[in-house]
C-alpha cells in the first residue's frame, strides 16, 4: 500500500519533473555556463572560462539602474492607484455592481499589451494629451519617450494585477471588525489606518510582488513608450541576443538579473513574514 502510493506519486510528478528539468534546470545551467564564455567571432558563443563578462557588467549599469529604480517606482505607483480602487470595489460598491466592475478591470487585459501600449504612444504623443494640455494653455509638455511615459505604461499595464489581490484581501475583511473599531471609539479614518490597512497587507504584498517580478524583466513597455531611450535590463538582454549577438555577455547579464531577483524577492518575503503580512495568500505567488 505504502509503496504503491509512492509509485503513484512518482508517476504523477514525472511529467512536471521532466518539464522542470528540461526547461528550467537545463536552461539555467546552460546560461550559467555560457556566462563564463566569450562572444563567437560572428556573434553567438565561444567556449572559454573567463570572468570578463561579469567584469564588463558596468557597461549596462544604466540599464540596471533604470530597472532597479523604475521597477519599484512603477510598483509603488501601481499600488497607490490600485489601492483606492480595490477599496472602492470591495467596500463601497453594492454586490450587484461589484462583479461587473471587477470584470471591467480585467477586460483590458484581453487586448494585447502591444496594441494598448501602441495606443499610449498616440495618447502621450504630440497629438494626444500634450496637445490637449497646450490647448488649455498649460504649456508645451513632452511626454512620450520619457521615463514618465514608461511609468504610465507600466502602471497601466499592471494595474489589474495589483487591484485583484488587494481586492481579494479587502473583500475578505470582516466588516464587523470595522464596526468593532468604531464601537471602541475609532473614527473612520483611524479604523482604516489601524484595521483595514494592516489586514489588507497580504493582498498588497501579493500584488506588489507580482508586479515587481514582472517589471524586473520588462522589455515591451520601455521599448515602445521609451522610444529606445529608456532602457531596462530586459531591453539590454534582447539587444545582446538579437543585435550584438553577444551570448556570453547576455548570459552573464541574465544570471545577474536572476540573482538580483532571487535576493530581493526572498528578502521581501522574509520581511513580509516578519511583519506578519504573509499569512495566507502571499504564498500564492
Amino acid at each position: 500500500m505504502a509503496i504503491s502510493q509512492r509509485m503513484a506519486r512518482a508517476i504523477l510528478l514525472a511529467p512536471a519533473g521532466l518539464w522542470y528539468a528540461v526547461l528550467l534546470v537545463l536552461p539555467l545551467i546552460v546560461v550559467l555556463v555560457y556566462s563564463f564564455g566569450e562572444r563567437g567571432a560572428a556573434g553567438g558563443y565561444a567556449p572559454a572560462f573567463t570572468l570578463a563578462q561579469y567584469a564588463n557588467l558596468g557597461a549596462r549599469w544604466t540599464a540596471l539602474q533604470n530597472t532597479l529604480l523604475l521597477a519599484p517606482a512603477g510598483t509603488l505607483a501601481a499600488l497607490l492607484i490600485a489601492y483606492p480602487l480595490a477599496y472602492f470595489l470591495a467596500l463601497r460598491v453594492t454586490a450587484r455592481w461589484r462583479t461587473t466592475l471587477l470584470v471591467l478591470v480585467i477586460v483590458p487585459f484581453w487586448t494585447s499589451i502591444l496594441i494598448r501600449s501602441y495606443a499610449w504612444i498616440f495618447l502621450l504623443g504630440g497629438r494626444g494629451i500634450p496637445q490637449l494640455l497646450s490647448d488649455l494653455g498649460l504649456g508645451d509638455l513632452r511626454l512620450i519617450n520619457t521615463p514618465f511615459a514608461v511609468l504610465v505604461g507600466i502602471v497601466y499595464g499592471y494595474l489589474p494585477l495589483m487591484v485583484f489581490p488587494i481586492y481579494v484581501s479587502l473583500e475578505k475583511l470582516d466588516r464587523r471588525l470595522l464596526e468593532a473599531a468604531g464601537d471602541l471609539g475609532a473614527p473612520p479614518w483611524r479604523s482604516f489606518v489601524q484595521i483595514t490597512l494592516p489586514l489588507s497587507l497580504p493582498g498588497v504584498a501579493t500584488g506588489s510582488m507580482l508586479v515587481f517580478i514582472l517589471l524586473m524583466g520588462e522589455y515591451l513597455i520601455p521599448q515602445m513608450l521609451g522610444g529606445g531611450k529608456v532602457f531596462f535590463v530586459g531591453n539590454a538582454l534582447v539587444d545582446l541576443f538579437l543585435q550584438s549577438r553577444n551570448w556570453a555577455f547576455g548570459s552573464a547579464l541574465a544570471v545577474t538579473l536572476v540573482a538580483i531577483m532571487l535576493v530581493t524577492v526572498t528578502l521581501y518575503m522574509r520581511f513580509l513574514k516578519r511583519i506578519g503580512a504573509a499569512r495566507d495568500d502571499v504564498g500564492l505567488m
Partner: protein
Amino acid sequence: MRLYAFVVYAFLYLPIGIIALFSFSAGRNASQMQGFSTQWYGRALSNPFVLDALQTSALIALSSAVLASIVGTLAALALSGMKGRLRTLFDALIYIAVMIPGIVIGIATLIALVTVFDAVNPWLEGATGWRLSMGAGSLIAAHGLFTMSLVIILVRARIEGMDRALLEASADLGAGPLATFRQVTLPLLAPAILAGFLLSFTFSFDDFIIAFFVAGSETTLPIYIFSSIRRGVTPEINAIGTMVMAVSLLMLVIAQITLRRGEKPNPQ
C-alpha cells in the same frame, strides 16, 4: 471615491477606446482618425497572415494551457500532503519558475534547446530522418513552464482547502479511490483547474517576449503585431485588437452565464 473610480476606469479604457475608434478610420495610419470605414476589419479578416498568426497563437495557447492544466494538476495532486526533500525541491522549482522573468526564460530556453538540438540532431536525423527544431513545440513547452507552475499553485491551494471529510463521505458511500477521484475530487478541483487554464491561456496568448525567442519559424499574433508596429501600423492592427477583445468579452459573458447556472456565487 466614486469620482476616483471613474477616473481610474477612464484611464483603463481610454487607450482601448482609442484603439476601437481608430479601427474605424478610413485612413492608412493607425494613430489618426480619418473618416469612417469598416474596411480594416475586412482587410484583417482576409489577411492570411493575420489569420495564420491568430490561429497559431490560439493553437499554442490552447495546447500549452491544456498541457499545463493536466501536468500541473497531476503534480499538485502528488505534492499536496507530501513532505520531505522531493517536496522541498519542487517548491523551489515552482518558486523559481514563477519568479524568473519571461525574458530570461526565453533566452535561456533558446540557447539551451539550440545546444541540445545541435547535439542530438545529427544522430536523430541519421536514425529517423527527423530533426528537432524551434517552433510550436518549444514555445508550448516554454510557456508551459510558467503556466504549469501557476496551475500547481492554484490547484494545490484548492486541494489543501478541500474538506477531507468529503473524500471520506465518498468512500463511506461505497466509492473506491478512483471513483472518488472522478466523482468528487476532480469536480471540486474543477474551478481551480479552470482558473489555471484560463490564466495559462491568457498568458500564452498575450506573451510576446518568450515567443520572440523561442517560436522558431512560428509567427504568433503578438509577434506579428510587434513586427508590424516596428514599421508603421495600419488600423488593421486596431481592428484585430478590437476583435480579439470583443471575442474575449463575449466568451467571458458566456462563461459567466454558464458558470452562474446553478453554481454558487463564488465566495472568493
